[in-house]
Structures are given as structure tokens and as C-alpha cells.
């Protein structure tokens, strides 16, 4: 490589690294530094505070619910779309992708319109004393909405390219639907499935906008962890806000690592199969 090329290479690498450092790494460091600014005791107090714990619980409940729900949906929808022929596949796939295109605030708005005070389902809910918005179910629903396509989006292209030959062979041999799924389809898609679940989890845990609209910010009752962070920050409890944030940062890093592992494993398996 000539001198000019070498210089160019170094400049580009420096630019890229600097950009990522400023945009991604510095914010991370900020969280950790500010979280520990007042020492370990304050940190631990903030993290184990009652409201924090309740918020964490709510976040986990919403996340797990969303992941389960969307995994079920993802599996059934990808099965329906990729193993059969019918008209309107594109439309269906497009509809499924809609939540991706919608701002989280609108996602929350939509559920208020259905279940909120002016919602058309409101009378029904009042009559049975069910609370959806400003309560946990609303939060779960909003989270489900926002992360709805994650798993089917990972599975559909993969299953489509894998075709349905093997499943058809098994069906002709007399196997039932769940057996076919378990023994034939699942092994092919397990890494993509895992990958989708990881992405779904990350987004569900971090969802803010939609949940913010739907929750009513009732401390201890309808606060997820991100909402809790918001409240602390707006009340100028900086250290506490960052302390709680650090939990989410750690979770985010774990997710990134898991994602990389799954990606790596998935790619390896594809290489082996191709070979």
C-alpha cells in the first residue's frame, strides 16, 4: 500500500472510531460515572429502592409477556405464510410490519383511543371494572404492539428460503403438525428464532414512548424501569436516575453479547450446512 493509501486508511479508521466513541461510548460512560458519582451507598440505595424494584418487576412482566406473545405469533404467522400458497401474502407481511413504521407515541395513542376514557371499548371495561390503560395490562399491550413484528420478521425470510419440501415429506409420511414443527422446522430455525427473541427482549425492555402514553406514570403501580428513570431525572435526582439506568445498561450489554453469540453460531451452522 502506498503512503497515501496508508494515510487514508488511518484517517478513516480514526474517524470511525472517534465517531463511535463520541456517539456511543461516551454516553455509556456517562451513565456509569454519574451513577457512581455519590458513591456506592447511594448507588445501591437507588437500585434497591422499593419503587425501582417494582418498576423492574413491571418491566420484566411486560417484557416476558411481549416476548411470549410475539413468539407465539411469530411462529404461527411464519408457518402460515411460508408453508402454504395463498393470495395476499405480501399484504399480510406488510401489515405485520406496520408497528415498525409507527412512532411509539402513536402506538400508545392508539390504545388510549381504544381503551381509554374516550375509547369505544370503555363502556364495556367500566362495566366489568377492568382497567387497561393506566394499568399493567395497557403497558403489556403497548409493549406487545411495539415489538410485534420482531420474531416473524426474522423467521419469515429464512423459512421462505428453506421452502417446505421437508415438511411436505414428513406430512406425507403421516406426521402431525406439531411433530413436523418440532422435529423438522424447529432445528432449521432455532438460531433465527433465538435472534428474534433477543431483539424483541431488548426493544421490549427499553420501550418508552408507547408505554409513557399508556401508563399514567403512577409510581409503584404503572412505572416501568425506563419510566422510573424519566421521573427521577425530571425531579433532578440525577444520581438515582443514572443508577437505575445502569441496570438497563448492564442488561443492554448482556443482550449485545448474546446477540453476537447467536449470530456467530447461526452463521457457523449455515456454513456447515452449505458445505
Amino acid at each position: 500500500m502506498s503512503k497515501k493509501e496508508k494515510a487514508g486508511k488511518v484517517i478513516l479508521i480514526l474517524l470511525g472510531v472517534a465517531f463511535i466513541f463520541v456517539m456511543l461510548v461516551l454516553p455509556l460512560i456517562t451513565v456509569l460515572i454519574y451513577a457512581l458519582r455519590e458513591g456506592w451507598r447511594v448507588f445501591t440505595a437507588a437500585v434497591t429502592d422499593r419503587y425501582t424494584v417494582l418498576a423492574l418487576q413491571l418491566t420484566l412482566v411486560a417484557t416476558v409477556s411481549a416476548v411470549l406473545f410475539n413468539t407465539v405469533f411469530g411462529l404461527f404467522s411464519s408457518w402460515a405464510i411460508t408453508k402454504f400458497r395463498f393470495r395476499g401474502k405480501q399484504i399480510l407481511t406488510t401489515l405485520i410490519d406496520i408497528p415498525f413504521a409507527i412512532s411509539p407515541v402513536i402506538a400508545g395513542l392508539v390504545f388510549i383511543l381504544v381503551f381509554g376514557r374516550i375509547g369505544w371499548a370503555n363502556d364495556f371495561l367500566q362495566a366489568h371494572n377492568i382497567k387497561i390503560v393506566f394499568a399493567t395490562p395497557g403497558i403489556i399491550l403497548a409493549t406487545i404492539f411495539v415489538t410485534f413484528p420482531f420474531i416473524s420478521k426474522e423467521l419469515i425470510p429464512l423459512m421462505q428460503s428453506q421452502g417446505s419440501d421437508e415438511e411436505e415429506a414428513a406430512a406425507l409420511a403421516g406426521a402431525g403438525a406439531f411433530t413436523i414443527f418440532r422435529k423438522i422446522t424447529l432445528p432449521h430455525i432455532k438460531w433465527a428464532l433465538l435472534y428474534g427473541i433477543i431483539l424483541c427482549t431488548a426493544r421490549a425492555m427499553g420501550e418508552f414512548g408507547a408505554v409513557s402514553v399508556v401508563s399514567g406514570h403512577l409510581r409503584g403501580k404503572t412505572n416501568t424501569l425506563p419510566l422510573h428513570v424519566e421521573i427521577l431525572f425530571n425531579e433532578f435526582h440525577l444520581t438515582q436516575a443514572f443508577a437505575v439506568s445502569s441496570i438497563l445498561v448492564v442488561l443492554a450489554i448482556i443482550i449485545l453479547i448474546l446477540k453476537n453469540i447467536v449470530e456467530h453460531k447461526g452463521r457457523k451452522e449455515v456454513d456447515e450446512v452449505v458445505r
Partner: protein
Amino acid sequence: MIELLQNAKRPEKGICDMTGFRFRPKSNRVVPGFGLSMGITITLLSLIVLIPLFSIFVVLSGIGWKEFIADITDSAVRATYSVSMTCALAAALIDSVFGLILAWILVRYRFPGRRLLDGLIELPFALPTAVAGISLTTLYSETGWIGSFFHRFGIKISYTRAGITIALIFIGIPFVVRSVQPVLEKLDSRYEEAAMMLGAGRFKTFVKVILPELLPALLTGFGLAFARGLGEYGSVVFIAGNIPYETQITPLIIMNKLEQFNYSSATAIAFVMIVFSFVVLFFINSLQFRVSKIAGGAGE
């Protein structure tokens, strides 16, 4: 969301290709489970996505036309359109430039920390937007590390449009990098070698040969980052300061209206947002389609 529109154009693969001219009975149900899976799919899709979204139209129909126009053309609201658009556009452009650089160095060069860098790219997806929001606000505030530096020159970042743009840059990074990276990886080195043999230097080769090949992916990444930027809430709400006419983005004003229980106004603005996103993405998708048509619809 480009995929949304791409899906609409992608030809059906799978069974269709494999059957060719083989006769398939109308009810191709060799594989079991169609009824159940389709039923569940449609039901859940309707419950979670379609019916709730439909509410927007239900509410809209209850609003008079005059009121609707007044809502969406209110001066404060119009200011938010301009703020959202310019910030999202600027952010997407910056993301495109740096995203290209990042994809390039990740694919073409070997250097210590490359794998770490590669793994970090998705951080904006993994990190909750609220956390990103508060840390960016703090970082760029007058007392923050970066903010204080600029403060010395009289430049404010937090609570300005610059701050909004920075937050939007943050969340848009992965879109461009991950769009361009796979294309760059698969790019045939022969094109560059051919350009070299014809006398072109590295820079000319990049501009005339490589860039056109990357353009579709770049457009996709740009479009995704832009669309995301328009609708982003969590990372922006803190750093923006929500000053009307100055740093108020459209999702924020919707939130404001909701807090005031002004549902009809919120819904009207939301509708505008949705329509606009679709228009933008459609436009970008057709641009991309035309570009790849030049190469013969070649994705490869």
C-alpha cells in the same frame, strides 16, 4: 420499514418456485396446520394491530373537516413538522456519511478493536431510549463533558435543535451501517481491479465504481434512519426541552395534546405523521428501485 414496501414488490418464493408447472390442487394442504396458524395469525394481527389502528380512523371521522385542518395547521404544530423534518434529515445524512465510513473500515480493514466496534454498532437498539436520552442530555448540557467544551465558545447543544439532531444521529447509526455492510462484504473485488487496471486511483475507483454499487443499500439505510428519526420520542424528549416553535418535535406535541386530554388534536396530528412516513418511505423505496434497475434489478 423499507422492508414493508419491499415486501410488496418481492416475488413469492418457496412453494411457487419449486412447483414450476407441476399441478397443485387448489387446496394445497399437504402440510397440516394451515387453518389453525392462519386463524391465529389473522386474529392476533387484528386484535393487536389492525383494530387499534382503525381507531384512528374512527376518531378522525368524528372530527369535523374544519377542525381537522385547524388542528394540523396550527402554527405550533407546523413548527414541529419543520423541526422534526430538518433534524431527522440532518441526522440521517450524518448517519449516512459516518455509517458508510464505519461499514468501510469494518469490512475492508483489520485493526485492533475491530470486533468490539462491530459489536457495539447495535447499542442504540439494545439500550432503552430513555437511558440514551438522559445520558445524552447530561453529556451535552452546559456542565456535561462535551457540552461544557462547546459552552466556552457560546454554543449550546442541549435544548437546541443541535441536541435533537445528535440524539437522532445516535439512534440512526445501526440502520446505515447494517444496510451497507453486507453489500460491501459481497462486493466483487474484480470491479475495483478492473478500474485499477484502467488507471483509476483509489479515490476515483471509490466514487465511480464502488459508490454506485452501494447506493441502493445506502438509500435503504438513510430511509430507515430518517423514518425512525421522525417518530423517535424517548431519546429526544429529554435533550429537546420541548420549547414550542424551537425544539418541539411532532411526537412531543402529540404527547402534550394527550396530557391535555385533547385526543382529537393528538389523533389528527398522528394521522399526518403516519401518512407522511408512508410517503417518505415510498419515495425512497422507488428511488432505490430505480437505481437497482440500472444494474438490472441486481441485488447481487
